[in-house]
């Protein structure tokens, strides 16, 4: 393996959790719901995946449990904001605060244990392609799922009837309701999909990225994923580009830290967060473009009238 290949490989590993969580949140926001609890769902997914993998010995079961945990945890948010019409911003924050606390408690006995790593699956023939084969076709299952989810979600949103309905709800829940589309049910499903994606992103962190459990190991990735959705102006393919850009920034600063350059490591560690702000500023500067792309009902509660 060449050095360039190794670096590219680490970039894909760093980008995958961002990509998964952002794609999930994109579907949620397209349905008009703003779930700020991504960070909490990721960290719950990470701890449950790690615990399940340790207890069963299977990384695949771990990933499955992580996904289920994210999904279940998001139901809490869905119940509060969709059934009880609580404020979405505050409830999302609550989900993050509870997730960080709960995961710390669950994970306490797993701190310092060596984890089970999700193994790579080489796809026959394709993985032997020079240059890109090893990079794209000799990866773990979660990587394949993350790439697949981009195209799957893109197809679902723009090519299926259900996707059209979901976007209609996000743009005008009142009109969608008047047309007989079930707003609340669709939003429940969207939020649960977002939860499952974030849970799987967490599983990637504790089973692939660094196979161990560390408290708060999500380290702000949920928030970066939220920013990525804005950056991508709610389009799946742009999320793919954004996630890899951020993966590159993350890995780039790690390499810069290793090389030194005389720059304090803390400044380099702050780069992904600063980059997020800069990117957000650049994207949202164009007010009209943002308004055109933002789902019009985003963040608003819906109570069906009879």
């Amino acid at each position: 393996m060449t050095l360039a290949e190794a670096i590219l490989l680490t970039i894909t590993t760093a980008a995958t959790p961002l990509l998964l969580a952002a794609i999930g949140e994109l579907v949620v926001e397209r349905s008009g719901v703003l779930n700020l609890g991504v960070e909490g769902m990721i960290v719950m997914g990470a701890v449950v995946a790690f615990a399940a993998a340790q207890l069963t010995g299977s990384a695949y079961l771990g990933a499955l449990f992580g996904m289920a945990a994210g999904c279940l945890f998001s139901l809490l948010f869905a119940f509060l904001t969709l059934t009880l019409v609580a404020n979405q911003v505050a409830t999302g924050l609550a989900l993050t605060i509870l997730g960080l606390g709960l995961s710390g408690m669950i994970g306490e006995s797993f701190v310092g244990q060596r984890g089970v790593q999700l193994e790579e699956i080489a796809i026959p023939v394709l993985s032997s392609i020079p240059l890109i084969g090893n990079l794209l076709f000799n990866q773990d299952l979660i990587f394949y799922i993350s790439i697949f989810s981009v195209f799957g979600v893109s197809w679902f949103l723009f090519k299926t009837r259900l996707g059209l309905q979901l976007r209609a709800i996000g743009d005008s829940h009142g009109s969608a309701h008047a047309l007989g589309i079930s707003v609340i049910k669709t939003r429940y499903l969207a939020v649960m999909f977002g939860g499952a994606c974030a849970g799987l992103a967490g599983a990637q962190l504790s089973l692939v990225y660094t196979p161990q459990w560390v408290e708060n190991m999500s380290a702000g990735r949920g928030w970066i994923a939220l920013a990525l959705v804005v950056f991508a102006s709610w389009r799946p393919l742009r999320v793919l580009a954004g996630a890899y850009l951020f993966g590159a920034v993350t890995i780039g600063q790690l390499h810069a830290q290793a090389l030194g350059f005389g720059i304090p490591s803390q400044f380099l560690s702050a780069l992904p967060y600063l980059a997020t702000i800069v990117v957000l500023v650049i994207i949202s500067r164009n007010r009209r473009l943002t308004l055109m792309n933002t789902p019009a009902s985003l963040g608003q509660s819906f109570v069906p009238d009879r």
Partner: protein
Amino acid sequence: MRIELEKRPAYSALFSMLSPFIALGLTIIAGAILFTALGKNPIDALYSFFIEPLTELWSLHELLIKAAPLILIAVGLSVCFRSNNWNIGAEGQFIMGGVVGSIVPIYFHEWNSFIVLPLMLIMGMIGGALYAGIPALLKTRFNTNEILSSLMLVYVAELFLDWLVRGPWRNPEGFNFPESRSFNDSAVLPELFPASGGANMGIIFALIATLLTWFMMRHMLKGFEVSVLGQSARAGRFAGFSSTKMIFFAFLFSGALAGLAGISEVSGAIGRLQPDISPAYGFTAIIVAFLGRLNPLGIFAAGIILALTYLGGEAAQISIGLPDKVARVFQGFLLFFVLACDTLIHYRVRLVTAVKARTEGEGAS
């Protein structure tokens, strides 16, 4: 069976009073279930969590020390949230308040004067306010989402403080520990009753901030402006209020209070800068603000309750061996229940069973 909401004709004053108490009750029940699941006797656990810290004088002092920053930050956030500005980076503003306020005692560590402390407090407030001004500037100038920008700045502030105390501000006589110099006496916030415990002036600042903010929101035009613009930016514009100015006001106000909390904590409770100066006060204060129903007087009470969960967490760890993370879980539960119970203020909640729904449907047709 499903849950249906029916909008009340007017908001319920009764439930607006009761909902925080219902939420507290539900949190305690959830806590009891959690403790049982962890294999502890729930009565013992709740006792050591909520009662034990109140039985001794020194721990009452600790309660005030922990409540002061929570109240200060949350009072500022309440103005922000009421004006519909989502500043969730108070943790970062707290840190920057601590950092900027510490410039004087670190660079002029031999300066002994009564003026040092007021200077530190003012600089702390300026530091917090300027740091909160960044998301406000980005929001007004570039339309950038303030939730994400203010939160990202928390990580940046944490790393900046880390660099300071390991690098340029490290105590030259400190055996390489990542700490600044200890502050001299004139840079330390005085204690209120030194004979019985360490509670300092911080709680007095919290009290003053609470009363002034309450007065502003209740009796001053500015408070009215906050509420109008928060409920409807359009209505506010017709009244001639500027939402741009309000964004700056809300962020600078909450940032200044978070900064004051930061320098008070550094000067009063810690006495020097170190990499970790806050047990997530800036985030817990969000819970305090909501539990207090965004009303400064309610927030004062709520701050004391949340401070109790910090102390209770420590007490329960020592006396019955509960993991210290339980406190954070508790705080998370509390916010969930508060938000859920707030529904009762504007809606009647009805459980509709399948049979009932069918008969209603027949009646309609």
